[in-house]
């Protein structure tokens, strides 16, 4: 699985040279709901629940410690 991921990453990055927009084409991307983490409080609450109920954490950001729940 990890090799598929790496291959996909490399292929995607090689396509980066074709991607991108000019500054005046950013009106949609600039909308708050298009931020990668547009609801950080919700993400933090979700991360805390899953951190305490499952064996994985982090990915989007730091996994860290911070709780005696796991």
């Amino acid at each position, binding site marked *: 699985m990890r090799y598929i991921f790496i291959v996909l990453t490399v292929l*995607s990055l090689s396509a980066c040279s074709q991607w991108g927009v000019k500054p005046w084409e950013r009106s949609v*991307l600039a909308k708050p*709901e298009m931020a*990668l983490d547009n609801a950080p409080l919700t993400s933090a609450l979700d991360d805390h629940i899953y951190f305490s*109920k*499952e*064996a994985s954490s982090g*990915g989007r950001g730091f996994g860290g410690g911070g*709780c005696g729940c*796991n």
Partner: protein
Amino acid sequence: MKKHQKITLALATATCSLIGGLPNAQAEISPDYGDWDVNAALLFYSEADRVKAIEPVISAKKQIDTDETVSLKLVLDSLTGASANGAVSTNIAQTFTRPSGNGTYTTSANETPLDDTFHDTRVAVSASWEMPLSRMDKLVLGGNISNEYDYTSIGVSSLFSRDINERNTTLSAGLSFASDSISPEGGTPNPFSEMLPAGDAGYSATRVDTSESKTTIDVLFGITQVIDKNSLLQFNYSFSQADGYLTDPFKVISVVDATTGIPIDYVTGVAIVPGTTLSQVVYENRPDSRTKHSMFTQYKRNFSGDVFDISYRYMFDDWEINSHTVDFKYRLKTSETTFWQPHVRFYQQSEAEFYKPYYLSGSQPTAGSKTEFATADYRLGEMNTMTLGIEYGHVYEDHGWSFAAEYYLQTSTEPDNKVGELNNQELSPDVDAFMLRFNYDF
């Protein structure tokens, strides 16, 4: 000489006027950065017969200069209820000693043993400072402190990012460090020592220390790429190294009769009978280090106002756990100010190499063994989970709110080759939870 004095005087005058003039000049060009931007959320989490939590969060962010902000966040987390202690269920009621060594709790026949002494309130405070280093470079520094009855955590983090390729690509690199300490009720147990009857004089001999600690270092590398005017993509790789006390001091492993599968009686050394004072269980022990690798990718696309958001994470570690997580949200714009957002999340993990749901009598390690590892904590077993949710929100120019309801289901895989009565028992029953969340942006 005279000419030199004149030049010196002129320079001094110019310097003074510059210094004197700076505050005014700055005040004139300084924009009004406004008040604190405050967001709040309230989460209710409820598992049937198990943990219940109420978690209010408030965060505030203020712009202090061009592209420079400070943020503060306060989280309260109030937990009550019961959690699985790791022991197996059986067809006879079982009694266990509370973690303090004083008092007992009894689990009915055919029920998963749950320790109902579980209650805690956590307070967490965090702060971050985002600053520009140059036109294309940014640094975010953060710190957090979290405290609960038996657990304290202090952490710091830094995240550097650079925009390249006409700001269509952002490269980021981060480092975080956390130091945690745990002081469990009754102290930390000796690995694989037996749980003793309540009030037993030998209780302290089963304890190693009053507190333990661990450190966690995380390293993160990321790349975010704008694809076109409606979509973007992110890849992250993160590495996490935890060292120290990673065992759960409250979790135990049952010792069962090798033929009947019924837990052994602590006193008689044979299978328990109704009215037995204590089932034989031993305290778990996990390795004192864990190295995790995570790869995360997220794709986000705008479809005429609707937002499609999907992410995938692959995690593997040196405990031989690997996991896959897919998270999907679709934000459906129903008017200029309202939206609905369905949410689906699937998670699958393999079991830790030392996952051990029970011991057959006589096969348990010697008390105090530090070279053997075992846990019956179902959270380190093979598991699938699913989350289904829906959120409804209003977004206005200067404020907004949303309400979300979610259902979470954990399905664990039963162990192979169960013996005797264990075949009639579901050792890892499904756990489900309801969540309600209210967000308000002031």
